[in-house]
């Protein structure tokens, strides 16, 4: 048998039908659903008189436009948001799918809830009408975002029509330097490949620096595979993975656990398997990074200066010029001189317990700069509860941060948490697109520790200066 990549193995285990031209029906083990991209899909089912084929494999949670202020227990004020969440309440009930409603302590961002509850397991296929489904690849699950028509297709048939992607390997060798995190790895990779560098590929992340990451860190890395254009990101499961999964509410138990482990331990890329593209970065070379522009590929070490658009090539010259103007920066300006007025810690990229610990570590005993608006939005109600138990919430509050309820919040600003035109935010989220956090708002992506450092000094800051 010819050697296979991890992606090949998971793919092969899920092909329910293959047509002569290579078009496959890929069976889906877990379908995650949220309120924004699903109403039209459920409506489509109703109109065609169709059922959800596998409700026991379908999990729904509202996250995108739920408010994160404590008064949300009294209901959602914005009528459109309320209608979307109510539609999900009703659809979950009518179609009999698993559901975590807004005021359930287990509610949170769908990509944090899935792993936390043990729905996401190694070797699975996982989809969701959300591009950051790539997050679940951290478990060695083939996970990717889909559109609403595909949501409807999966609801009705538990399959997706797919053609196989190519294999790409991203290896991070060696050890990370102090102050460098999973977020810096994933941003540095996109800085290297560009936002279209992964188009047509599924990425497998490997190497010592990836192995050394916790599950939280691995989720951060895979989460942004989509920002590099890849269909999915994967990391082979190992003891770190099994340790995380064991005992979760929906993880297998007893004899089933043993049977699952037997298969999970075969989920790695065979020696000599072929990759169509290989990128290698040295862990030691990765610095704490920030984005300067309006594409996640606009990444530079915090010690660098804003680039000159003329130094780029092709269409990137105009794109960089437009970005720098939108961001209100000047070529040659030191990134560490850029003043910010808002800090957002949260999102499916960096809203897990380890992220909050990293930020709290920097903030301990310190205050945020006067006039700074800073908020922490835990990724789930359970992350929030754990952070309170560990005393992290107190550190944030004493430093001057708002301590919010779980949701997507200012990552995409569909709820009331938004930037005003011209406001500048240091954000632990995943997209710095024009208007992403609010029309005219300016976003610099960075790690939780870097976000905490920026909150203290009021400017983009090299976290190593505060360590």
């Amino acid at each position, binding site marked *: 048998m010819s050697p296979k990549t991890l992606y090949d193995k998971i793919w092969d285990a899920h092909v329910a039908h293959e047509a002569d031209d290579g078009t496959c029906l890929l069976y889906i083990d877990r379908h995650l659903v949220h309120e924004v991209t699903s109403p039209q899909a459920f409506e489509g089912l109703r109109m065609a008189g169709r059922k959800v084929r596998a409700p026991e494999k379908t999990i729904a949670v509202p996250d995108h436009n739920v408010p994160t202020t404590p008064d949300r227990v009294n209901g959602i004020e914005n009528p459109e948001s309320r209608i979307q969440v109510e539609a999900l309440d009703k659809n979950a009930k009518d179609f009999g799918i698993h559901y975590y409603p807004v005021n359930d302590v287990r509610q949170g961002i769908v990509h944090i809830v899935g792993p936390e509850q043990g729905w996401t*397991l190694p070797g699975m296929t996982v989809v969701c009408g959300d591009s950051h489904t790539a997050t679940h690849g951290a478990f060695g699950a083939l996970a990717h975002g889909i559109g609403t028509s595909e949501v409807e*297709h999966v609801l009705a048939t538990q399959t997706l029509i797919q053609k196989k992607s190519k294999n790409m390997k991203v290896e991070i060798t060696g050890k990370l330097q102090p102050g460098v995190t999973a977020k810096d790895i994933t941003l540095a990779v996109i800085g290297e490949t560009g936002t279209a560098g992964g188009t047509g590929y599924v990425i497998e992340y490997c190497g010592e620096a990836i192995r050394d990451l916790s599950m939280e860190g691995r989720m951060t890395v895979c989460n942004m595979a989509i920002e590099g254009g890849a269909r999915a990101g994967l990391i082979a499961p190992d003891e770190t993975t099994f340790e995380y999964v064991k005992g979760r509410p929906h993880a297998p138990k007893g004899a089933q656990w043993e049977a699952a482990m037997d298969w999970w331990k075969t989920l790695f890329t065979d020696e000599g398997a072929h990759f169509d593209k290989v990128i290698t970065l040295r862990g030691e070379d990765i610095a704490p990074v920030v984005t300067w522009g309006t594409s996640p590929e606009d990444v530079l070490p915090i010690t660098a200066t804003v680039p000159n658009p003329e130094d780029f090539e092709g269409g990137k010259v105009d794109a960089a010029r437009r970005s720098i103007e939108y961001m209100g920066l000047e070529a040659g300006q030191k990134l560490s001189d850029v003043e910010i007025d808002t800090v957002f810690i949260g999102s499916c990229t960096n809203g897990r317990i380890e992220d909050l610990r990293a930020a709290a570590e920097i903030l301990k005993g310190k205050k945020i700069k006067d006039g700074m608006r800073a908020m922490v939005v835990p990724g789930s109600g359970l992350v929030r509860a754990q952070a309170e138990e560990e005393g992290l919430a107190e550190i944030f509050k004493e430093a001057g941060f708002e301590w919010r309820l779980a949701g997507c919040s200012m990552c995409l600003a569909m709820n009331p948490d938004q930037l005003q035109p011209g406001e500048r935010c240091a954000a632990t989220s995943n997209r710095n*697109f024009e208007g992403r956090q609010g029309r005219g708002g300016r976003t610099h992506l960075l790690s939780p520790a870097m976000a905490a450092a920026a909150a203290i000094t009021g400017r983009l800051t090299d976290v190593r200066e505060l360590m």
Partner: protein
Amino acid sequence: MEKFEKVHGVAAPMPLINIDTDMIIPKVHLKTIKRSGLGVVLFDEMRYHDDGQENEEFVLNKPAYRQTEILVAGDNFGCGSSREHAPWAIKDFGIKVVISTSFADIFFNNCFKNGILPIVVEEEHHAVLMEDAHKGENARMTVHLEDQKITTSDGVEIAFDIDPHRKHCLLNGLDDIGLTMEKDHHIDKFEDHASQARPWV
């Protein structure tokens, strides 16, 4: 779904690279529970000023491009969020074809589900089409799906590739779910096998 055969219409140039789905339709318009009526907010933040007035500089607001049916766009069009509201808005505006040197994966898939034809062309051909699109409404481009051919207003012909299954579905206006349900027995068989092999799933 409506059958897709041929489009003969105005092509608009949008040379900017990395046009993301937040630009195509900002999140404030994702709160709908319907698919229709989003054309008016297509490219919202570029198309309208803060006060809601049209930005005359924006290509689709120029008289020559108000009836655009073909968009010639910069590289990596449709990157970012998976929101299908992006192709819904494009379709609702009246655009039926988007041409670029590359598309983001999810957006590309979403187009086919909505009867929009995304075409990937080589850089040299892209330059020819972009130049043609700059000529305004008198220069109409033709996209012929059956023949897999784009014809510029000057009669230059450019061939393009398309996945045969997707071409078949577009030409015949086929609904994916209906097609897949015809293969139900394969899915049943897979489920039987998988529940033995991986009972914990």
